[in-house]
Every structure is written in C-alpha cells, then in structure tokens.
C-alpha cells in the first residue's frame, strides 16, 4: 500500500515519531539502555527544552564520539562501557519509596547514626515518602519564600531553562565549553538535572543554599549540571552533597559545575562527597569524574572552593578558578581521604589573567589501606597578569605502609612580577603521637580521627557550620580499620 499524507499523520500522532525525530516512545519512564543521538533527543524532549539547547546537546554528543579517553591521570580502571547504562530514568514513584526507616538497609542507618544525622534528615536521605516527612517540606517552602523576596533564583536547572532561558543560554557552557574534556562533553550531551542559582546585583543570599532544599528536584543524576551566577556585588554560599553515603546503580558520575562571579561578587562553594567507595577490594564503587570551574569575571570578584572528598572508588576532579578580573581572588581548600583500594587524582588550576590577582591552595591528602592519591595542581600566570600572587601548601599523611601519596605541582609563570610560593610536606602518624593518645585512654580509632582532623584543621575551618561537625565525624568513619 502506498503511504499517503493521511497515513503519515496517523502514524505521527500515535508514536510522535517525526515530531522529535527519533524512535523511542516519549511516554516511557526509562530511556532504553545505551547512548545514542536518539537518547539525547529523548532527554531533551522529556524536559521540553528549546531548540538551541537540543542543538547544543547534539553538538556535544557528536564531538564526544570523536574524543579519546584521557589517560594522563594516575588512576586505573577497566574501560568504561558507555552503552551499559541508563541515561534517563524518571523520578521514583512515591509508591516505591520505603514507608519508614524500618524498610531501609540497616547498614545505611548505622552510618547515619555514626554521623549524628537527625532522624528526620535520615528519612529524607533514605527517600522515605515525602508525606511522611511533613516538616522538611514546610521548611523548604519557607526557604523558597525568603529567597523569592530577594529576587534570588534557586531551582532545578531544567526549571531555569523555562523560567529564565536568556540567563541559561548566556552562561551555560561559557566556563566549561562542552569540548573541554571527554567527561564534560558527555555531561553536556546527557545531563538530566542540577542546580541553577542567580543572585541579583547587590544581594547577599541570607542563607546557605543546598541541594537538600531544592524541592521538585529529580533524582540526583549521574550527570549533574550546576550553574551559579553571582551578579555585581552579590554573595552566595552553596553546599553540595552530604556526609551520608550515597549509592547509585550507575557507576559513572560526571558532573559539571560552572560558577560566574561578576564585579565585586563572591561565591563560596563547599562540597562534601561520600559516594559509595566500593568494597575493601574496590569493587563496585562510583567513579567520580567531575569538571568544576569558576570564572572570576569581574573586578574584585572572589570564588572559593572547599571540598571534603572521602568516597567514590575513583575521584578525578580539579575545581579551578579563572582569575580574569583585576584584583580577583581564587581559593581552593581540600581534604581528600583514600582508604582500602580507593584512588584519587585531584587538585586545582588557578589561572591568573587580570592584574593583582591572588590565589590560595591548601590541599590535605590522607592515604590509608592500599589506596593511592595524587595532588595535581597548576598555577598559571599569564603575561599580562602583573602583581599576581599564589600560595600553595600541599600536605600528605600516610597511614600504614601500603598506601601512596604523590604530588604533581605545575607552575607556569609568564610574568616576572608574579610571586608564587609552594610548600609541601609528607608525614606518617607518628608512633609517639599515637601512644600519647592511647596513654590518655583514647582508643586507636579515636586517636586517628583526632590526629587526622587536626591535620585537616585549616580546611575544616572553611566549611560552613552545618557541614563542619558532620564532616569531622565523616573523617573518622572513613578511616575505620586503617590502623592495626
């Protein structure tokens, strides 16, 4: 039978095949497994995205196909099968959620207890159905009101695309272009959600923003995309992650975070990451390959990154600052703990472009078990960056004699007036220190937690209060079993 216009129309209305130019049924909850241009279109359609965004995704996907795997980091893993993953899954139905903490894995609850997480928060974290956690919903609503009064936009990035598309279009990909590296490229093609923050001129955000209170968020995707814009003279402090261990059936996590600070603006971005690290033999853990970059576009702008990385089987991230504006300031404070068979290659890049810019890097790496860790940093002073100053301190602490810690600092200075300072130490927890603690009645595990927290103090002091206490406990828990 010859296909006529009528038939084609009928087919279209049934499957919506030609409207989006792909085959998969949009009504489905899951995209089928695997990665293809089809899936990219599916994701974009599910989110009802404008044409320009779909185009951007497709360009990224097509470019991704041409990119080789980066191999320069000091980590090793079996090749990733990109087809063996679901790139889109609808949020879980409330019917699937546990009705109470009794239905949640007791081991998970044990960790929540150790971290001192309040019961209500435990329920939220375990995904207990929202109507059973009434308080959290009402608290979140109050937050939203406060923010709206100040003109602050804080929502899911997919919502931002609908609400303020000009802002998203202007800044998305402006700090991390999709072609930056293979993982950011994949993220650009298939990211499903993340945070969008816009702070208007002169506004100081009255509270710490955290993903915890971003209601209407879909599942924390493996490919989160976050965009934070601080307009002239504004200030915001953002918290990402939580101390509770997070599991995910998807192994690869490749998030992208872009920060933009205009004249006299400041962004403080803190992360506590405790993704499932795998078992004692490293099997099954999450790969956390993240691209985070902040652009200090404006004069006197400031961006500081603070991170506590204790989870994931493999961590690969370099939160960086591009210091374009004159007198701009970039800071990086990091604690990275690797135990058992974890691997981490992490650090930062500070690119000094404007005049009289300064950067501070304080990196504390703790390695235990049979873990391996590398600090990889770049301080780059461009020719016009007169008066640039950098101070870098990277300290490593080794626990036991089977772990490794490495430091790879790069300094490239093309301006003679730059002042670059670098200090590095490597140490073990001394037997004297351990015995001093034991002799005062403190157990070995408690002593390690105490000494390591002391080692990390400079970084811990940068964390917002709510995170600081939990982070201290988390450090102790991450090093369990590392001594004796």
């Amino acid at each position: 039978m010859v296909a006529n216009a009528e038939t084609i129309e009928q087919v279209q209305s049934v499957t919506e095949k030609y409207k989006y130019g792909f085959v998969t049924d949009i009504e489905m909850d899951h995209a089928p497994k695997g990665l293809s241009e089809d899936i990219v279109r599916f994701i974009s359609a599910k989110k009802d995205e404008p044409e320009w965004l779909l185009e951007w995704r497709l360009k990224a996907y097509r470019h991704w196909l041409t990119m080789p795997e980066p191999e320069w980091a000091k980590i090793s893993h079996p090749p990733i099968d990109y087809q063996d993953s679901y790139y889109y899954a609808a949020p879980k139905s409330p019917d699937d959620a546990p009705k109470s903490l009794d239905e949640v894995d007791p081991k998970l609850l044990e960790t929540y207890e150790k971290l001192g997480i309040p019961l209500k928060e435990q329920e939220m974290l375990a995904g207990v159905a929202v109507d059973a956690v009434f308080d959290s919903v009402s608290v979140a609503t109050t937050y939203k009101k406060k923010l709206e009064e100040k003109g602050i936009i804080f929502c899911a990035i997919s919502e931002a695309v609908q609400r303020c598309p000009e802002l998203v279009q202007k800044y998305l990909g402006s700090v991390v272009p999709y072609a930056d590296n293979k993982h950011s490229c994949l993220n650009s093609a298939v990211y499903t959600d993340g945070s969008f923050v816009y702070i208007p001129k002169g506004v100081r955000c009255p509270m710490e923003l955290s993903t915890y209170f971003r209601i209407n968020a879909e599942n924390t995707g493996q490919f989160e995309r976050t965009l934070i814009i601080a307009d002239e003279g504004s200030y915001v402090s953002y918290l990402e992650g939580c101390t509770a261990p997070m599991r995910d059936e998807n192994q690869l996590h490749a998030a992208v975070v872009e920060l933009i600070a205009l004249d006299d603006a400041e962004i403080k971005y803190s992360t506590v990451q405790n993704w499932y690290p795998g078992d004692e033999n490293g099997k099954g853990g999450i790969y956390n390959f993240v691209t985070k970059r902040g652009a200090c576009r404006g004069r006197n702008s400031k961006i500081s990154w603070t991170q506590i990385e204790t989870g994931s089987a493999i961590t690969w991230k370099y939160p960086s600052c591009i210091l374009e504006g004159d007198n701009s300031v970039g800071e990086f404070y990091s604690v990275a703990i690797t135990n058992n068979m974890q691997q981490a290659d992490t650090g930062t890049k500070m690119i000094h472009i404007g005049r009289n810019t300064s950067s501070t890097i304080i990196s504390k790496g703790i390695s235990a078990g049979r873990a391996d860790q590398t600090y990889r940093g770049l301080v780059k002073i461009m020719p016009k960056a007169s008066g640039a100053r950098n101070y870098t301190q990277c300290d490593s602490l080794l626990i036991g004699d089977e772990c490794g810690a490495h430091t790879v600092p790069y300094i490239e200075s093309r301006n003679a007036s730059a002042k670059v300072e670098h200090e590095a130490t490597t140490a073990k927890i001394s037997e004297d220190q351990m015995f001093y603690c034991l002799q005062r009645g403190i157990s070995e595990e408690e002593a390690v937690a105490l000494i390591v927290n002391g080692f990390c103090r400079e970084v811990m002091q940068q964390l917002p209060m709510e995170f600081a206490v939990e982070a201290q406990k988390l450090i102790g828990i991450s090093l369990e079993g590392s001594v004796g």
Partner: protein
Amino acid sequence: MALLEINDLCATVDGKEILKGINLSLDSGQVHAIMGPNGSGKSTLSYVLSGRAGYEVTGGEVLLDGKNLLEMDPEERACEGVFLGFQYPVEIPGVPGTTFLKTAVNAVRRYRGESEFDAMQFVKFVRAKAKEFNVSDDMLKRAVNSGFSGGEKKRNEILQMAVLEPRLAILDETDSGLDIDALKLVAAGVNAMRGPERAMLMITHYQRLLDYVVPDMVHVLFEGQIVKSGPKELALELEKEGYCQFFETAA
C-alpha cells in the same frame, strides 16, 4: 592491698634485656622516687607500666589494685587509672588542647560507665582546673604542645593529670629542662595532686625536684634492678656521692 605491686619484672627492648627483675610496692597515698644513672632502665620501666609497644615483658607480674596490668592494652590501663607524665611530650598539630582533653576524659568516663561531658560542661570543668594549675586559656586553645616551651609542656602534663584524676601517676623526669621558677610551678602542681586515693612514682635524675616534692621512699635503679631503697635522705646522699658506689659493686 597495695595500689601497685611489681614482682620480678623483666623486660627487653630490641632484644636487649633492660629490666632484670624489678620488685616494688606502692600504697595508695604514697609518693616514691626512682633515681638512677642513664641507661639504668628508668624510662623503660615507665613505658612497660604504661604498655608502650616495642617493650617486651619476659617475666614477672604487675598488679594495679590487684588486677593484672600487663594483660591490658595501653588505653585500658589509662582507663583503669594509670597516667604517664612524659619526659618529652609530643605535639599534635591542629588539635586544640581542650578537644584532646575532652576526648580523653570522655573515653575514661565511658569506660567507667559514667555520663560523658558535653562541650559546654567540659569547657567549664577544664577552665576551673586550668586556673588551679596555672595553665592559661590561650594554652588550652592552642594545639596540644604546639610551640610550647619546656615549662609549658610540663605544666600541660600536670593539668592533664589533674583532669584525668589517675590512681597511679608515673612522672618521667618531670623536672628535665626546667628553670627554677618553672620547676616550682610544676612541683606545686604535683603536690596539689597528692592524696590518699592516689600514688605517684617520680622518675628523676636530679635530687632538686625532691626538695619540693618530698618522697616517702627513694629507690635506686641500676642496670635494670633496684639496688637500694631508703627514705628521702637517700636522695641527698646520692647527690653528694653519685652513682659510683653501684658501679664499683658491679665490677
């Protein structure tokens, strides 16, 4: 029952026999001094009693309030009431003194089934003690022993003793590296801790500390054994004559 009973204690370090049969008995409320030349085993004795790794007991027994001390891990011994005032207190960077003490005190209280201090309660408690023992607020806030002078380190040891309230305090050369004024302060602290519920073992090189902290008994440790014991006058005798007499006897 004596608070501390040491019977025929023998110990080696790196395969070398250092303690060759120590016999000592301490009652609650008493302060004994142990003196002896370098290498006689004074520090070894303090480490064996507190349970430091690397010190192997090859014979004998030690009873604390009738309990077998040598079977216990070092932190257990501490919780049972053993305190060692270190000769060279180590630094723990980044850990404020108050945090360290609170962790220790709460560990001991947990062991004893007592309720733990919360942050506010503990600060009050430790500030009161610090005042008594001449330790400034600033010293409490600073990291443990970090940048402390010799005198400050020793005063910090005494404060820790005051806070932990041990049954048996072993003070290893508490007077080493101190000038006269610092010595007087430390001695005052030690004396303030003397009491019927406590016994002290002071290991010292020089007699002068014993002018301020008067012992009930003095023992001479020589080549791993206690070769002479006597009242406080023995210390003065040693000061005058040195340890030669023991060397000659050995020869």
